[in-house]
């Protein structure tokens, strides 16, 4: 029995976050391929019925249909990770994860726009997108530099959480939109550790 169904587009980095979570948590799941580009299938009535905002990913678990990347990550961790590690239950641990999920949803949105502009020629000012993206990624590098001095190797806890999953693709895929890894040494170290997690999967593209 495979209850979890992910409506998935292979080249969508938000879908990649959920694929990563499902794989890192070792869950059984089934993908349903959605023809986003060029078919715009995610904007057709059956998909708008599941997410009126017209975005992927969408996750179905039995009767529950969820949209919103961070909500899906939080749900998968809370409902399907008995260890509680991926979304710590204690107040501070939970809040630290939420802080970085929020950063991912809000501040890293620009990196998704930059990547879509670069890959799919969606509208946007390339220079401005790149500048804002590198600013957001630098905030992550500063955080992980400071964490390193406190002997903490992950964004929000002493181990990997869904915060790391939410943040990983923006950095790993940054070369798709012209931002190299040269100037983010703390993120390079973190990404190396992340790629060594059991169950890690790559994304099509220059994922490093």
């Amino acid at each position, binding site marked *: 029995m495979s209850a979890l169904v992910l409506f998935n587009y292979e080249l969508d980095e938000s879908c990649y976050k959920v694929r990563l979570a499902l794989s890192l948590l070792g869950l059984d799941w089934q993908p349903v391929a959605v023809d986003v580009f060029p078919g715009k299938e995610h904007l057709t009535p059956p998909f708008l019925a599941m997410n009126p905002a017209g975005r992927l990913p969408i996750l179905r678990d039995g009767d529950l249909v969820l949209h919103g990347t961070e909500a899906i990550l939080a749900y998968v961790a809370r409902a399907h990770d008995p260890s509680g590690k991926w979304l710590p239950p204690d107040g501070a641990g939970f809040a630290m994860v939420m802080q970085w999920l929020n950063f991912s949803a809000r501040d890293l949105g620009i990196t998704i726009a930059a990547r879509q502009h670069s890959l799919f020629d969606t509208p946007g000012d390339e220079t401005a997108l790149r500048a804002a993206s590198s600013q957001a990624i630098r905030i992550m590098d*500063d955080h992980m*530099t400071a964490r390193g*001095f406190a002997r903490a190797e992950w964004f929000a806890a002493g181990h990997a959480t869904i915060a790391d999953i939410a943040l990983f693709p923006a950095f790993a895929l940054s070369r798709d939109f012209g931002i190299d*890894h040269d100037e983010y*040494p703390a993120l390079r170290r973190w990404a190396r550790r992340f790629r060594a997690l059991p169950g890690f999967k790559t994304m099509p593209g220059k994922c*490093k």
Partner: protein
Amino acid sequence: MSTGGNWHPVGLSYSIEAGSSAGTRLFGQELVVWRDTSGMAHVWEDRCPHRGMKLSFGFVRGDHIACLYHGWQYDRAGYCQYIPAHPDLEVPKTFKVPVYLAQEQGGMIWTTLSENPPPLPVDRDQTVPLRSLYLDCSAGAAIAGLGMVRLMPFASGALADTIVHRLTDTLYAVSTGDDRLLIGIQAISDTRTALHLAICGSPKLYEGFGQSHFLDWALQLRRAIEQPSPQALAARGAAAEMN
């Protein structure tokens, strides 16, 4: 600053883990800095001779680096040793990546684009890594900014003046009392500069709290250089005139 015979820092030793690589630039020239699994650091031209792909996108395999595109593998001397599409081929010696000298000192990886460089000045001090700062300014402007933020003491605790020392064209130090930071100057291009910061002293004394203490200074310095206050700008102008 001359591009010629100098040694130039291209990163903190700590930032390039064994079995990993990173791209960088020196005077606009693209370089890959990589460390083989035995721990030896290498600085090469960042370009696979096959199709021009950046080697810094590739993967370190033991004492080889492999290109991401077609997996061509190069040994420590830069010679191509293996081409996956032609596994039985004896690879011609002409398939070679230009290799530069690489040495480690003061917690930094140094290279030179010269074939006959002067010896790298010996500094036996122990260091603890701090961080690298990447700035949108010339090396000269970054150097002029080094004294902009007061360095607060960590080891001695007593307040003292912040003093900027020029050790070589590419290595400075900022000190206060018993505390001293080494600052390697990397001219990435005419308008982009990296400062590689390391704390002089033992890990026992500085690891952890000492690093966090000086990280504050580093971030304040970056802010000051990126968004100089009118007073700081005036002070820099005066200092530049004195030099």
